[in-house]
């Protein structure tokens, strides 16, 4: 049987639908506008719910939905691969705060989405996935392109649904959309059997509402707030640890005001980059495996940690035994299950980040007396500067290129990345000052995230907001086919491939922990990205000298459409500081010999 239309299904379901009306069918369904189907309800529900952009790939089981989309004003972007559709939707959600929607057919379409869904789940990004499914009567028969999609995605979605009737499918999709964005965001999925989307229905979906079993607490208990405030007032060495929840909860303003009013140094997790301006005196920047020395010193030595919207991932904590080992932890989170999951909270403040910060602010009677601690933090900032050497006899350093792009672009520029060394240089050497401008794959660490994320981000960005994507050679090769989409949609994005002709991060670990045995991390051949970009119809550049960096960056940014810069960087360059997995954050290494 041949894809994409799976003709036999269409024939069989249509024939069946004619012969045998659904048992117990709503009589009002006969009033249906002729040809109005479950798929129309799916689209109407997305429109009602405020969906803005969708990314997907066609196929047999999802065709009814695509057919209904044909008449809709919803923006749909045809992607080259479903994984990229999911990443684009995910990035759209990160930048806009509104769930991005991705669509795929059953079977391989749905399984191709899986990586992107898992990525969104790990990072609590709002996203809705709609997958086609074989007709209900075929489910369980190992039919052509059948996969148990709700089974496969149960552990990697906030929730998922198997749509069971054309009359209710619209409300299910609306609920999935509302649920993805509510409380702690996350990906939701609706599996859509082809008969459900193809059957006629007169039922119009209602407003998109979250399920009535979902009612997250937004305000923290007063006693807990008072307790937290007292501990914070008494603190001698306080730190605010900001997690991605601050950005997702739109609590950036409250967080900034709070830290500044009480003059408490601020460290961020990686997803929280941009929540607090990195050029602020109080900023310690990012903490964790490749965080700054000063952030790791301050979080290791603090006596009270106000942690807001973070799940204490192990790349952030390092070995949990040595993570802020003497600190009382005041943990603000909207998800009660995050409290004391990885790090025990001394005070649990369950609620919405912005609301709880306001509550705390109202409760605080004075700022902690921590002048000495602040100067200690500033000493650490000068003791452990984020810096790199540029010796004449060594090739171009990637950090320099990241800084060059930062200088050439505005503060609101959105940066997306793949996964590897280049991702870490992009976070370390760009100065982030705005929320929703740093778009990366944190919890799952998915190579190939950068380009599709740049595409999704571009659709969510303001018209004059630039999008720069840093990729590694290996990571770029995983999803570079999406350049075809960027060209087709004429998206003004710039991809800088920090090309070290290595699977660099793996090579770095092999040098540090595996006696330099470069097993499957060295290429003996790597494609040239400039002509490759041009073959796609994008503008290609190559740069390898310091002198040419500024001009090339300028030309690439100025090009009106997608451009790709093959940046030939020093293949031997490594990412430091570094805390080895499970190590003590306070013992971060500044070079390989300190590991």
């Amino acid at each position: 049987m041949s894809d994409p239309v799976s003709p036999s299904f269409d024939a069989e379901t249509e024939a069946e639908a004619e012969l045998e009306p659904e048992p117990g069918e709503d009589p009002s369904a006969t009033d249906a506008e002729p040809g109005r189907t479950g798929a129309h309800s799916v689209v109407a529900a997305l429109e009602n719910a405020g969906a803005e952009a969708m990314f997907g790939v066609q196929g047999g089981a999802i065709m009814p939905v695509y057919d209904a989309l044909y008449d809709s004003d919803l923006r749909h972007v045809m992607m080259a691969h479903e994984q990229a559709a999911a990443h684009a939707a995910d990035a759209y959600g990160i930048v806009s705060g509104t769930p991005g929607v991705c669509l795929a057919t059953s079977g391989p379409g749905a399984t191709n989405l899986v990586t992107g869904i898992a990525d969104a789940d790990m990072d609590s990004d709002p996203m809705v996935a709609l997958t086609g499914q074989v007709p209900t009567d075929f489910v369980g028969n190992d039919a052509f392109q059948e996969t148990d999609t709700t089974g496969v995605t149960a552990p990697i979605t906030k929730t998922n649904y198997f749509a069971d009737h054309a009359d209710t499918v619209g409300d299910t999709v609306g609920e999935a959309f509302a649920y993805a964005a509510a409380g702690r965001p996350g990906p939701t999925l609706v599996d859509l059997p082809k008969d459900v989307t193809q059957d006629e229905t007169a039922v119009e979906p209602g407003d998109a509402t979250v399920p009535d079993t979902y009612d997250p607490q937004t305000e923290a208990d007063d006693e807990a707030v008072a307790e937290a405030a007292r501990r914070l007032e008494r603190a001698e060495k306080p730190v605010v640890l900001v997690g991605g929840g601050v950005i997702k909860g739109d609590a950036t303003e409250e967080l900034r005001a709070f830290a500044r009013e009480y003059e408490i140094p601020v460290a961020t997790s990686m997803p929280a980059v941009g929540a607090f301006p990195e050029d602020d005196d109080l900023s310690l920047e990012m903490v964790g495996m490749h965080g700054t020395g000063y952030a790791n010193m301050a979080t290791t030595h603090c006596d009270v940690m106000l942690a807001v919207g973070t799940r204490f991932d192990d790349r952030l904590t390092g070995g949990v035994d040595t993570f802020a080992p003497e600190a009382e932890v005041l943990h603000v989170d909207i998800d009660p299950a995050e409290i004391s999951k990885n790090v025990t909270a001394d005070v649990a403040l369950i609620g919405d980040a912005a609301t709880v910060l306001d509550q705390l602010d109202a409760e605080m009677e004075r700022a902690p007396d921590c002048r000495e601690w602040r100067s200690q933090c500033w000493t650490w900032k000068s003791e452990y500067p984020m810096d790199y050497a540029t010796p004449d006899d060594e090739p171009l350093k990637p950090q320099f290129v990241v800084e060059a792009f930062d200088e050439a672009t505005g503060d609101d520029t959105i940066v997306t990345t793949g996964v590897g060394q280049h991702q870490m240089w992009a976070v370390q050497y760009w100065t982030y000052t705005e929320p929703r401008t740093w778009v990366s794959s944190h919890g799952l660490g998915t190579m190939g995230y950068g380009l599709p994320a740049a595409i999704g981000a571009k659709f969510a960005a303001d018209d004059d907001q630039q999008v720069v994507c840093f990729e590694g050679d290996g990571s770029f090769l995983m999803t570079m086919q999406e350049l075809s989409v960027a060209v087709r949609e004429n998206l003004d994005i710039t991809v800088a491939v920090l090309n070290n002709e290595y699977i660099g991060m793996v090579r770095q670990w092999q040098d540090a922990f595996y006696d330099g045995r470069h097993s499957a991390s060295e290429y003996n051949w790597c494609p040239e990205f400039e002509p490759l970009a041009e073959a796609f119809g994008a503008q290609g550049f190559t740069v390898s000298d310091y002198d040419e960096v500024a001009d090339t960056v300028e030309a690439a940014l100025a090009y009106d459409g997608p451009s790709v810069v093959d940046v030939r960087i020093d293949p031997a360059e490594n990412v430091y500081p570094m805390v080895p997995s499970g190590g003590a954050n306070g013992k971060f290494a500044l070079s390989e010999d300190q590991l």
Partner: protein
Amino acid sequence: MTEGLQGPAPDERPHPDGRRTKQGTRIDPEVEAEQDTRTAVVSALVEHEPGVLAKVSGLFSRRQFNIESLTVGPTTVEGNARITLVVEETDDGIDQVKKQVEKLRPVIQVGELDDDAVCAELVVLKVRGDEPDKVHAITQMYEGQTLDAGPRTITVQITGDQQKIDDAVDAFRQFGIIEIARTGQTALARGDTPTTPGEEPGHEKAAEKTRKDDTRTGTYDD
């Protein structure tokens, strides 16, 4: 030209003396650090929809919770079911179990039962039929019933709390147990206490959510 990363090496820096446990709890030298595990009975009122049992049981393997038994059955409210879980965890672990189960969308309410909750389990035992009188006597002793008696095998059922079932199983060993099936514990809170917090008698909220024409909801288990 700049210098690259600088600063005191790891062994030249101050390091705090304090530590946390593997579970992330600050170690207070005064207090015993490691928590003991205990058995808890957790009841979850859920919307009876396809996949709900898979969602709950999947959580247990994914989060590595130690689960001793799981039972499920409908309540008197159409569209609702009750899942009873017996778990063996530390206090923090039990807390996590409750919070993670609560997060699942079809879960309406979760509660942990007190020690005085009423718990019951059913066991069906098939033993050799050589000594029917003795088997009968032991069955009576445990207030059980004989379900099937033949020349070669006798099958009985016993209900009761876990201790009683364990004792009964021991008592039947003398006859040679050929096959055994246990349901795992199911439980309700004693007296007027609701089994899950806020649960009302005949809880009606979810009844309205009954699905039309749902042919896939014939069983809890999908």
